[in-house]
């Protein structure tokens, strides 16, 4: 019960900070603090009756609400699938890497530093160029490089979104596992005659999970920024179009809140599970 109350308070704080932020452009444009307060009040009122919200599409005013939901679910599906895929891919790669000899691991880490430095826009640009080049050479269109109207593309944006997060997770996992393998329990496991693979798979992985959980928030933060770029580059009809097309604070606020909802719930759930597991372990 206490945890639930905590979550609700945290959610209210999140919404309040989003509302406060969305009023900022008014403050900068009009250079008047009273106007900012007024704008913030307006945004809060709009959120209260979000059902009546409208947006402008090619000069016409349309109701926002049932309209925005389908692009919203589209964006969220892409985000969640790519986050999960990135995590799973990185975990598999890490297990393979840990079994390699030390000098190879060192090499891999150096290569990863290089890949980590690639700007996201470069990855997307190379992806576009590669698909077009491949099509020119073989006449096989791997995937549409841009969506038209209501058309939905999944593969390309998911691959684009997951490449860099995979690399971030991969590097973090390797570093954490190596740190973990310095600890006494690792040696103890080996002394007992357990195979390295077994210790890595069952003990090290479990012990690094908590750190990775906190790290994944940063990755998610990065991915939401990237979503904006990906949706623009591939002309996808996702939620960020509503944010960018119609530049009113109330639209920004509602879109940010919509994006935050599923991840907030997901992380609250995971945190609750983690804390419960910790308690169990302490009790044991």
């Amino acid at each position, binding site marked *: 019960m206490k945890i639930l109350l905590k979550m609700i308070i945290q959610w209210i704080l999140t919404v309040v900070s989003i509302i406060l932020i969305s009023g900022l452009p008014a403050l900068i444009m009009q250079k008047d603090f009273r106007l900012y307060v007024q704008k913030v009040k307006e945004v809060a009122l709009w959120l209260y009756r979000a059902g009546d919200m409208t947006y402008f599409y090619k000069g016409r005013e349309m109701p926002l609400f049932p309209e925005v939901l389908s692009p919203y679910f589209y964006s969220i599906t892409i985000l969640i699938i790519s986050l999960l895929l990135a995590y799973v891919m990185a975990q598999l790669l890490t297990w393979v890497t840990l079994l390699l000899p030390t000098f190879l691991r060192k090499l891999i880490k150096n290569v990863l530093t290089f890949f980590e430095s*690639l700007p996201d826009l470069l990855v997307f640009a190379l992806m*576009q160029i590669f698909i077009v080049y491949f099509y020119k050479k073989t006449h096989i269109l791997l995937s549409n490089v841009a969506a038209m109207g209501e058309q939905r593309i999944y593969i390309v944006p998911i691959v684009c979104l997951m490449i860099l997060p995979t690399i971030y997770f991969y590097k973090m996992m390797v570093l954490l596992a190596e740190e973990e393998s310095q600890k006494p329990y690792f040696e103890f496991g080996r002394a007992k005659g357990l195979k390295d693979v077994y210790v890595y798979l069952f003990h090290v992985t479990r012990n690094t999970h908590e750190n990775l959980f906190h790290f994944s928030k940063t990755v998610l933060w990065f991915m939401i920024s990237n979503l904006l770029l990906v949706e623009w580059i591939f002309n996808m009809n996702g939620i960020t179009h509503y944010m960018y097309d119609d530049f009113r604070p109330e639209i920004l606020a509602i879109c940010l809140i919509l994006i*935050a909802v599923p991840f907030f719930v997901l992380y609250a759930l995971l945190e609750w599970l983690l804390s419960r597991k910790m308690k169990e372990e302490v009790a044991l």
Partner: protein
Amino acid sequence: MIRSVKFWIGLSIILLLVTGSFIHTLFFDSYIRQQQIIYDNHHNVIGAAPFPPSLKFPLGTDKLGYDIGLKVLQGAKFTICFAVLIALLRVIISLFVAIPYAFYIRSSMRLWLEKLLSSFYYVPLTILAIFILTPILQNTVNGFLYSFPMRIILEVVILTVLVVPLISVMIGNMMAALMKEEFVEGAKVLGASKWRIFHKHLLPHLVPKMLIVFTQQCVQVLIIFIHLGYFKLFFGGSFIDFNQMAPDPPRSLSNEWSGLIGNYYIEIFTHPFVAIGPIIMFAIVIYAFNLITEGMQTHYSQNKQILKKGKKNKKATLQQQPTIEKTENKFTFIDQKGA
């Protein structure tokens, strides 16, 4: 002196680009080659701009025949210097915010503040920056809202302030963790003031960590510059041409890199090298900063290991340093008494 090859490689790449850029401005007056058409010996046209990368034009030329390599060189000083400036401001301001956070706020309060700030994880910086900076950086039909220096100041301030809460909590937590160490307890028992604990005991441990946070922030700022560039928000403002007949592309301050990205990205399918060139330069600079970070990390962790080993083996050379420090402390102690 930092003993790490990676560190020096990274640092020299960045210094090379910045000094090169300044030399280009000071001694060559920011001259940018332009070649629209290539002729052979018989004055027959054999090629027209844009030219692909070659020995003469390492990054190729754009549609108007301007050398992209020189444009990038000219813009390097703005992009890199302002990225470093913003990162520096972020770290310094966060440090000042972190001091009261670590010293005067109870740990239960700290947990709450941290919870509040974790809502920032759902509001990505790029979207916020685009949203807040658009009225500042893009001109309307009536011109800009702010003057040129004001635009730069505002952009620097906004890109700094938006991140300060997150970084100061991070630094504050580092400081709070250090405060629990035994040597701080010892200093407290001996009656050290808060200021003394901060600058004699915490600061020496914090400085290396701050340096690493600083280079990481440089990378973050560069990434924001790329995103802003793609959305045509250039550093110092984008001059949009409202001419109905033949509008020019948005222009930026002296070929600063995010401007180059914004202007050239449209050509991704027709002339990929034109669009990719500036982004690759960003990649190189980010890689250089990452090398510096890694170099410093290995350097400082090795230092720690040497000290630990020194304690165990009681090696004379390593043992000398603490004794010197001790005698120094004695002198200052007497000095203070005399004063």
